[in-house]
């Protein structure tokens, strides 16, 4: 999910008269009103506003009387409607902008209202001379009401509830015995029907596009009518399983949400093959399925897609434990800072760890390649060696595959359990009683797996989360921060050390009042450049003299050569690391390798702009030099293969071993290994071909996929094109491997890594495929029409059946995109 959520487009207003100048699509509120609520005196309250992406509180506004609320537009202006009055606030500043009355008399009754870009539109009614007078009014909260639209109807004098369509002048009036829909513009009754026990609260609801109207009854039914040329016609009949007090159409009116004392329920009104008949026929079955889903013994979160293989404590080791080692700091060849470097920052962190009066969160931020992960590694090692209970999760250590994202808190908890007996016994008893807890939302995981055990254990703990920004999903990054923020005050003995690049959404979270008070912020690029450069020099000197002595070079590197490398590194530790790896070639002596990068083209630009200073220019040219030196033959066919291999390393959602890359893109393993081997200084490559290969640093992926930085077209990887290519490879592999009919062949074994990857991740590439989509359609059609049953079998075997929901959602929206030509660059 990107920076902002798309607003759905709904139908245009059906009336072209002067009354509906508002463009309907931007209406924001679902009409609802609970007038009065039996209160006779004002009850003071609070309006709390959250940022939905981070869950962090933006503001709290004190109000004199609480009521119904709606946003107008995106600027944070809020309109509060309380018992016939309205009040507008600036939600971000917390100041009141204006207030006024909607009803002029106590016997006037307020109906639903809509708020849109500062305008408030509402319906009101009153009785006069045996007639119901209905008015729809609109006002700018800062000016006097506009001319109201008023019509009178001879409706029997019953009490009723008003609601009106946002897309037309149609207004509903629901009484105890009947439902009436009127056209206020023509003073005409469009539809009138007797309904047994219609619900008083809520009144009827129109969908945003005005096409559907629904009304609930006290017998727990919902009737849905559709607008037709002559009035309204019955369209669907729903029977929610749980008792409801209110319901609402979704913005695009494909579903209805109902809620009440026992929970919420999603309903799909559908009139195909006679909605009413079908719903009745299915009643018995639905009751059974409700019993399976709803568990009244628990307080929340009753419906969830259960995992096929719920892990018990005994299963934790193979399932969670393995991933923990991947995410933890002892995995692989990751190194901390060289002793004697990064003095200032390490001292600052050390004093923060020791001093429990300091804020409980430490956020270390800095541009990519400045050594954040090495510092985090050092912090964990330091804590471990000083007997401090510490648990860590390194997102950059290849733990950022899709399946692991949700497992950060379980992974942290398992490490804590391994190290501390009290935490272990608490976790063991928790997992025995509720093994599914590891699949709950981040906040629930944080509560159950971290906060509660550590609260009972009462032991000082440091939790390290490295490279938070390198996760696939912004929303999850924010969800983790919000979960930490939510629970941190409950566990005063626990400290969180978080590193990331200063990405806008993370930066924004840490600068909001609530989190900023809880966090120490250390900005790496504020460290004096001289100090950083000196650290890099110490590192290079140490590593290069090691290389020199291995190769019997006494006079290498010369001081000028070291100076040049330090100059080029320009504060980026990743440059120094890549250089050292490149110089340490197996067969070519380092001084000859040095000659290759000494003449790097300095002609690229780079994203990592800090305070207006361009960094990483030399990193780009280093990469270009290494690539050019590794692939000297300028052969179009060979280059295409190199690009395919590189693209698969860079774009896959979780790292694959060379053997799986070969299977996926139909190459020989030896060929893939040879390509990867020739640029091993830019990768983290194992000797074992079954171990996954990853880019040395995220900067390499950024470099290869950016047309401005990777100026050599031979190596540029266009994500638009290569996501298509990988999606196609995945689909072809599935189509070729899976059987049409039920078969054991549809159950991937552990060794079929590429097939497993294609099963669980193909939709992620499909969703981002933009170029060459025409080739994908026939392959996708074959997959959907012939292989989906087998795919479900495969996912079931892999315990990844929940992926179906996301996969189908993404596939459907991608297909619609193709259908409407959204992905083409139309001039």
């Amino acid at each position, binding site marked *: 999910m990107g920076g902002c959520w798309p607003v759905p487009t709904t139908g245009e207003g059906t009336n072209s008269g002067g009354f509906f100048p508002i463009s309907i699509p931007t209406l924001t509120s679902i009409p609802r009103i609970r007038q009065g609520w039996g209160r006779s005196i004002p009850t003071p309250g609070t309006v709390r506003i959250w940022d939905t992406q981070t869950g962090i509180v*933006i503001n709290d506004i004190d109000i004199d009387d609480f009521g119904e609320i709606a946003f107008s537009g995106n600027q944070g202006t809020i309109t509060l409607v309380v018992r016939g009055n309205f009040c507008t606030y600036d939600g971000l500043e917390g100041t009141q902008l204006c207030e006024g009355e909607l009803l002029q008399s106590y016997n006037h009754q307020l109906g639903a209202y809509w708020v849109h870009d500062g305008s408030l539109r509402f319906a009101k009614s009153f009785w006069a001379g045996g007639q119901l007078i209905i008015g729809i009014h609109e006002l700018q909260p800062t000016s006097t009401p506009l001319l109201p639209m008023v019509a009178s109807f001879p409706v029997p004098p019953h009490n009723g509830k008003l609601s009106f369509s946002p897309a037309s002048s149609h207004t509903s009036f629901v009484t105890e015995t009947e439902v009436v829909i009127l056209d206020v513009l023509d003073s005409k009754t469009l539809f009138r029907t007797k309904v047994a026990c219609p619900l008083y609260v809520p009144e009827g609801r129109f969908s945003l596009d005005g096409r559907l109207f629904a009304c609930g009854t006290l017998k727990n039914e919902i009737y849905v009518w559709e607008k037709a040329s002559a009035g309204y016609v019955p369209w669907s009949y729903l029977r929610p399983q749980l008792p409801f007090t209110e319901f609402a159409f979704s913005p695009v009116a494909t579903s209805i*949400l109902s809620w009440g004392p026992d929970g919420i329920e999603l309903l799909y009104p559908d009139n195909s093959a006679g909605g009413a008949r079908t719903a009745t026929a299915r009643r018995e079955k639905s009751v059974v399925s409700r019993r399976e889903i709803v568990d009244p013994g628990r307080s929340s979160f009753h419906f969830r897609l259960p995992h096929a293989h719920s892990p018990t404590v005994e299963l934790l080791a193979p399932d969670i434990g393995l991933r923990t080692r991947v995410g933890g700091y002892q995995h692989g060849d990751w190194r901390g800072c060289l002793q004697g470097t990064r003095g200032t920052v390490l001292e600052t962190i050390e004093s923060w760890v020791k001093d429990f009066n300091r804020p409980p969160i430490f956020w270390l931020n800095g541009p990519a390649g400045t050594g954040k992960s090495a510092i985090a590694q050092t912090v964990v090692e330091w804590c471990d060696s000083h007997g401090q209970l510490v648990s860590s999760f390194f997102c950059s250590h290849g733990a950022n595959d899709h399946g692991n994202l949700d497992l950060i808190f379980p992974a942290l908890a398992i490490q804590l359990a391994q190290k501390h007996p009290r935490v272990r016994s608490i976790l063991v008893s928790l997992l025995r009683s509720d093994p599914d807890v590891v699949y709950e939302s981040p906040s629930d995981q944080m509560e159950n797996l971290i906060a509660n055990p550590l609260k009972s254990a009462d032991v000082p703990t440091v939790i390290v989360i490295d490279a938070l920004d390198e996760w696939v999903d912004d929303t999850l990054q924010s969800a983790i921060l919000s979960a930490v923020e939510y629970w941190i005050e409950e566990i005063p003995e626990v400290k969180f050390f978080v590193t990331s690049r200063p990405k806008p959404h993370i930066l924004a979270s840490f600068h909001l009042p609530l989190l900023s008070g809880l966090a120490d912020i250390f900005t790496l690029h504020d460290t004096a450049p001289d100090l950083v450069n000196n650290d890099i020099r110490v590192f290079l000197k140490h590593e290069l003299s090691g290389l020199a002595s291995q190769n019997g070079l006494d006079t290498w590197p010369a001081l000028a050569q070291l100076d040049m490398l330090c100059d080029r590194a320009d504060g980026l530790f990743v440059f120094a690391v890549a250089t050292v790896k490149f110089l340490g070639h197996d067969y070519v002596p380092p001084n000859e390798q040095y000659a290759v990068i000494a003449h790097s083209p300095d002609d690229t630009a780079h994203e990592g702009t800090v305070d207006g200073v361009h960094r990483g220019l030399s990193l780009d040219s280093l990469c270009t030099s290494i690539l050019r030196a590794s692939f000297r033959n300028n052969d179009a066919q060979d280059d295409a293969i190199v690009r395919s291999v590189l693209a698969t390393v860079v774009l896959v959602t979780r790292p694959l071993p060379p053997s799986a890359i070969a299977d996926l893109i139909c190459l020989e393993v030896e060929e893939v290994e040879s390509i990867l081997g020739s640029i091993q200084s830019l990768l983290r490559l194992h000797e074992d071909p079954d171990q996954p290969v990853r880019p040395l640093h995220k900067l390499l992926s950024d470099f290869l996929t950016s047309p401005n930085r990777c100026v050599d077209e031979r190596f540029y990887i266009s994500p638009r094109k290569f996501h298509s290519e990988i999606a196609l490879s995945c689909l072809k592999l599935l189509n070729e491997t899976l059987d049409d009919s039920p078969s054991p062949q549809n159950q991937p074994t552990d060794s079929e890594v590429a097939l497993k990857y294609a099963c669980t991740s193909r939709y992620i590439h499909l969703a981002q495929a933009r170029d060459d989509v025409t080739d994908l359609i026939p392959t996708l059609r074959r997959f959907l029409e012939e292989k989906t049953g087998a795919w479900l079998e495969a996912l079931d075997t892999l315990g990844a059946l929940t992926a179906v929901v996301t996969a189908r959602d993404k596939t459907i929206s991608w297909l*619609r995109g193709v259908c409407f030509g959204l992905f083409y660059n139309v001039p």
Partner: protein
Amino acid sequence: MLTQSQVRASADVGTLPDTAADFLRFVTEFFEVISQSAPHIYQSALPFAPQSSVVRKLYGQYISLPKSKVVTNIPLSWGSYTAGAGATIEVSCAVWSPCDQFIAIGWVDRVEIRNSSTLLSRSILKPPNSSPGILVAPQSLAFSSDGRMLACTYHR
């Protein structure tokens, strides 16, 4: 202008979104049984898929019923009910996000954002501080039109 092949691709898409949507419906409806073990797809789910469903038309030939030969009362089309979230605490208010993908739910003790197709929880939002033992129940919820902000009224 779209190229010919692009226009053809748009036409080729045809009913594929409906096919994909039908599969989604199939899996959510029979999730409990399918997740027990893979053969249930053909033994316990497909035989009960509605007569009009695309999944049944495409894969009906693989239905495997070990004992019985006749299944009656197969619904004509998918029913209306898909997902519910029961609770011992009351829901006092709820609202859809403008993008249709999320639902904000005001439980008596918390506000929660959930995915609107699966009802899985995305995040739980903190209520204002209250005196110990006193619940501050959310009263009314609203999303801003870009979905970035969520407001909720509480009484004190």
